[in-house]
């Protein structure tokens, strides 16, 4: 049960409470330490383990991926689409490798599941676009970072 305390008319204005709050605000404004940065000019240092834009790691110019389909199997947002093919040297390779990046939730499970150390999440986190991007194989083959 809610008990209403009795208040006088003066107390109803909350004069002192407002004043106390204002003093705190002004103290922080003039003498406090800043927690925000002016973003595009200033950048923050992020952890090396940040899960950002994907890429497929290559060794000696050949992508590590063998189209084993473990990443589309494990992906919770079902954003990876792979079609396997046979290369000239009879090896299995991904004919198409697409990531519907707007569906991706950057959980990093694809990276964890990959037995060939192929799919990687780089530390690049600025990837906004004005259209709906689908990362194709050529785009993913660009080497970003050293994970």
């Amino acid at each position, binding site marked *: 049960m809610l008990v209403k305390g009795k208040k006088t008319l003066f107390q109803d204005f909350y004069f002192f409470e407002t004043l106390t709050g204002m003093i705190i605000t002004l103290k922080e404004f003039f003498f406090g330490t800043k927690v925000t940065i002016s973003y595009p000019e200033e950048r923050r240092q992020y952890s090396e383990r940040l899960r950002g834009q994907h890429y497929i790691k290559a060794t000696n110019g050949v992508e590590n991926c*063998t189209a*084993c389909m473990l990443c589309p199997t494990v992906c919770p947002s079902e954003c990876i689409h792979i079609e*396997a*093919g*046979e290369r000239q040297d009879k090896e299995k390779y991904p004919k198409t490798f697409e990531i519907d990046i707007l569906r991706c939730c950057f959980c990093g499970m694809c990276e964890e599941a990959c*037995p060939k150390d192929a799919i990687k999440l780089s530390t690049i986190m600025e990837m906004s676009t004005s259209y709906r991007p689908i990362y194709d194989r050529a785009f993913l083959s660009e080497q970003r970072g050293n994970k």
Partner: protein
Amino acid sequence: MPKCVIDGREVEFAPGENLVEVAKRAGVNIPVFCYHPGLSVVAQCRMCAVEIEKMPKLQTACSTAATEGMAVKTQSERAIKNQKSIMEFLLLNHPLDCPICDKSGECDLQDQSYDYGSPYSRMTEEKRTYIDLDMGPVIVKNMNRCIHCTRCIRYGEQIAGIHEMVAIRRGNDTEITTIDGKPLQTAYAGNYADICPTGSLTLKDFRFKKRVWLLKRTATVCEGCARGCAMEAHAENNIVYRCVARENLEVNQYWLCDEGRFNFHYLHETDRVVEPAISSASGLVITEWKAAVDAAKATLKGRKALALIGSDLTQEEAKDIQEFIGKSFPGAPLLHFGTPGIHSAREDADEDKILKRKSKTSNLHGFEKLGLKGFESVPSGTEAVIVFRGGRAMLPKLPTLPTVGVGVFKKQEADKFATVLPGAAFAEKSGTIVNFQGREQKLVRAILPPGKSKALSEILMIWSHA
């Protein structure tokens, strides 16, 4: 019935039954590689060795017949140590190919390595490798993955009837190959891939197409011939990727012929008519359902019609058609067609000594039950033809009459038709078919009909109500 005890569970068995089968019934899984219920027993892989009371050594369960009062321990310390050692031995030279191997996900070696093996390898030497040999159009061999279970050799000898696989050299260098390196001859080569417990023999047709755990499995029946072998259709996203044999001891045991196995390809062929079409000066033109049905009605109106029905349709569809013809075209003869030269169930016989039958359609015997007659020649006075067909039946040679086709047709076949109403093929519908033994079996739908095709009952509904 005599009884024995397996892992403390009492089980009844038929005399002569081996321990693997008896244990399976008791709910105890004994791991096997070389044992296959459809083949002879060689006890070669030693994986199934179990401890039996009053016997000094471990015994292979596949080659030991159960006897009255036998007490078997499959999980004793010695048996488990043996399983672990055998797994390590078999994996010594096995490459870590699972990411690219087509067998991965349904591989006996993979599954049992998880269940009985060790996650670590002590092997530091280089693994033995082979140069691979082309094995013809059906099978791809990868000898590096082989564990020498010899199932393929025994299958060729005992089931396919051709002794074409052999093991050459001995010991570590054993290689499974064909005699003189010739391509495989048998028309039942797809089974090599089914029975191989590793990925050494895989289908060329299915190579790198899909990982097996992504496929949806539907238990259905093959429509390749009058035998009606039990089959599983594996599909994903409305595409059938492969068909594999399913066990049915009364009909096909564990096997399937290549003709039936690869028959599903016509479902996804690009020249299949999947939209209602009417003929024009420049061949078939795609239209709407309403317009196509109206055109079909106009084609047959006032003409003396002949109705042909492919014996690859189901019993339900045949019954629907009988009623439809009786109502819409009273007096029109309804005849079935399917295989050239086979007009009735009496002419159907075994084509070889394994599975194949002469009638290349699945439901010839069911149609005889419904009282349908075979098509031999066009009755005199016929002015128009309506053909119902499921996709497998061979179209007979027809004189140039106005023709309406209902069902699955290729573009070249339907080129001369006045109208085509696209229907569903065997994996796209459910129904009953009757095989040559009189056994009623169920077709089960695995995928949806492509494009604007509809099930036959739906087409007949549009026809009667439009």
